[in-house]
């Protein structure tokens, strides 16, 4: 549209004396070049991140080869490093966080779009969005000083005594109640990503044409039946996209996780056991690594792996959410 509007305009101007046309043309050239350069700069940034992380991690990839990805060893003394434990921790906490957050986020979005009285919609929506604005380090402190003790004193002992006694599932809920650990980290992560998922769900639910919902109501459907039978099928793909967005956030979350995960380099069968994630290892061990050491390179290699993981998830999320915009 715009192209079509500008082009025919430029042609007759060329024929005229350059008095009015040329300053505009010069300004156009400069401004357009600046905009294009800025666009290119963003590409350079992402390219730079990938390349720099890979170059930094190269010595570690060279030293340990492909097994670096699943090796569970992490010994700074003998300089043997593996990413297995932290990749496991990253994925387990993120997936667990999604499992905890999605039902609640759905509830919030359902409430905000269908149930809430109109005057309450904005304040509640804003409050949930503010939850997303709280800095990660605040979640970390809150989790460490408030949630972890509650988990350690009340929740975990109770769960260990009941569910922990069951065969098979019980394995996941055993061990001493530290308060910190994989499960607490996942819980904090779930609270942190809840507003992102809820906001995406609310936005896509609102995009369902009212006619569809009204026809379902006209047939006598209850609110829940309209949600399940009309809204959810209509928005299915975008909802998954929103969940992936939350997953992408959860994978790379650093400060909050570092506070509450317990930071131990081992894979425990119990979800209450301590662990670590890629981001928490990088944040904690970085200060103790010398410039140019193999350990630093291993940390950068971890960063590269995290980047690949979150890139895949975020790209998938964007792809899924984009199909909504076009539809």
């Amino acid at each position, binding site marked *: 549209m715009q192209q079509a509007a500008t082009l025919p305009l430029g042609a007759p101007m060329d024929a005229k004396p350059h008095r009015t046309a040329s300053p505009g043309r010069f300004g156009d050239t400069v401004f357009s070049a600046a905009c294009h350069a800025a666009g290119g700069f963003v590409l350079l940034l992402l390219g730079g*991140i990938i390349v720099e992380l890979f170059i930094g991690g190269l010595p570690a990839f060279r030293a340990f080869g492909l097994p670096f990805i699943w090796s569970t060893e992490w010994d700074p003394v003998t300089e043997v490093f593996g990413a297995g434990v932290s990749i496991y921790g990253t994925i387990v906490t993120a997936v667990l966080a999604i499992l905890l957050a999605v039902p*609640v986020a759905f509830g919030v979005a359902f*409430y905000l779009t269908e149930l809430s009285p109109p005057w309450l919609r904005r304040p509640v929506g804003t409050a949930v969005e503010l*939850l997303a604005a*709280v800095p*990660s380090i605040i979640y970390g402190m*809150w989790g460490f000083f408030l949630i972890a003790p509650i988990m350690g004193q009340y929740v975990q002992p109770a769960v260990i005594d009941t569910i922990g006694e069951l065969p098979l599932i019980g394995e996941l809920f055993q061990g001493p109640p530290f308060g910190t650990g994989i499960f607490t980290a996942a819980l904090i992560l779930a609270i942190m990503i809840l507003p992102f998922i809820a906001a995406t769900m609310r936005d896509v639910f609102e995009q369902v044409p009212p006619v569809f919902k009204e026809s379902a109501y006209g047939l006598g459907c209850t609110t*829940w*039946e309209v949600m399940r039978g009309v809204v959810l099928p209509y928005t299915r793909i975008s909802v998954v996209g929103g969940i992936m967005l939350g997953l992408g956030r959860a994978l790379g979350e650093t400060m909050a996780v570092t506070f509450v995960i317990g930071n131990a380099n081992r894979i425990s069968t119990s979800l209450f056991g301590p662990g670590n994630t890629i981001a928490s290892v990088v944040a904690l061990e970085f200060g103790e690594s010398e410039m140019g050491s193999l350990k630093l390179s291993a*940390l950068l290699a971890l960063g590269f792996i995290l980047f690949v993981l979150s890139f895949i998830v975020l790209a998938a999320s964007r792809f899924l959410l984009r199909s909504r915009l076009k539809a």
Partner: protein
Amino acid sequence: MSATTMQPLGPVKDQAVAAALGRRRKATDRLVRLLSFAATGIGLIFLASILVTLFFKGFGAMNPSVFTEVTKPPGSEGGLLNAIVGSLIQVALATAIGTPIGMLVGTFLAEYAKGSSFGNVVRFVSDILLSAPSILIGLFVYQLLVLPFGGFSGWAGVAALTIIIIPIVVRTTEDMLTLIPNTLREAVIGLGSPKWKMIVTICWRSAISGIITGILLGIARIAGETAPLLFTSLGNNAWTTDLTGPMPSLPITIYSYAGSPFQDWIELAWAGALLITLAVLLLNILARSVLGRSK
């Protein structure tokens, strides 16, 4: 839904069955409503719990020396002055550098690259950067600016925060420019204005409240960022405004103090946490009111 259509059509003798079905459907509906209400309550309780904890612990530790003294060893009465100033400097510089770049990229996407494949790639990459783990941006700047120049520096911190704020400004700028009707553009072009003038004087001006919202949200986001500063500006316990050396910042100080075994340091961390949360939430509310007024 098929059950729904059956109800009115069903023969008279099925009325008991239909009534039971209706009761079950209503009960399910009530249950889901209740759960959804509870879910919203849970979300709000978490927010309230965070705020209440912060207020109790933060106000207890708040006193004038927090704003007048620099960070000191445990035992002596210290404050957060250097951390607050360090944060302000780094955030202000990152905003000053990141905003024009972000606006140009957003303008590029909305005015120059609609539908072009280069534009789509830039949009995709910017969205990835928006959600990319901030710790990786810290690692990147470490590799780019800290290693080659031989040390941690405030400028490196500024660079990391700049990279984080750019995609936020890009997103809102593009969204706001896209909302402007094309007829307005055509009218301006029709008056003989060059394109850059149309963008700067008409499009930017129409979108300004939205763009300011984006900038405020961006500031709120980078003010609380901790992870990327760990490897760039590192933190510093002394008073400094020298951007070429390690520089203190509020989040980093909170991080190191909260994890320390000293009670007075932990209290200072709470005071800092309250400060930063208040600032971030106020910026968010301010941003919303700016946008709300223009609508």
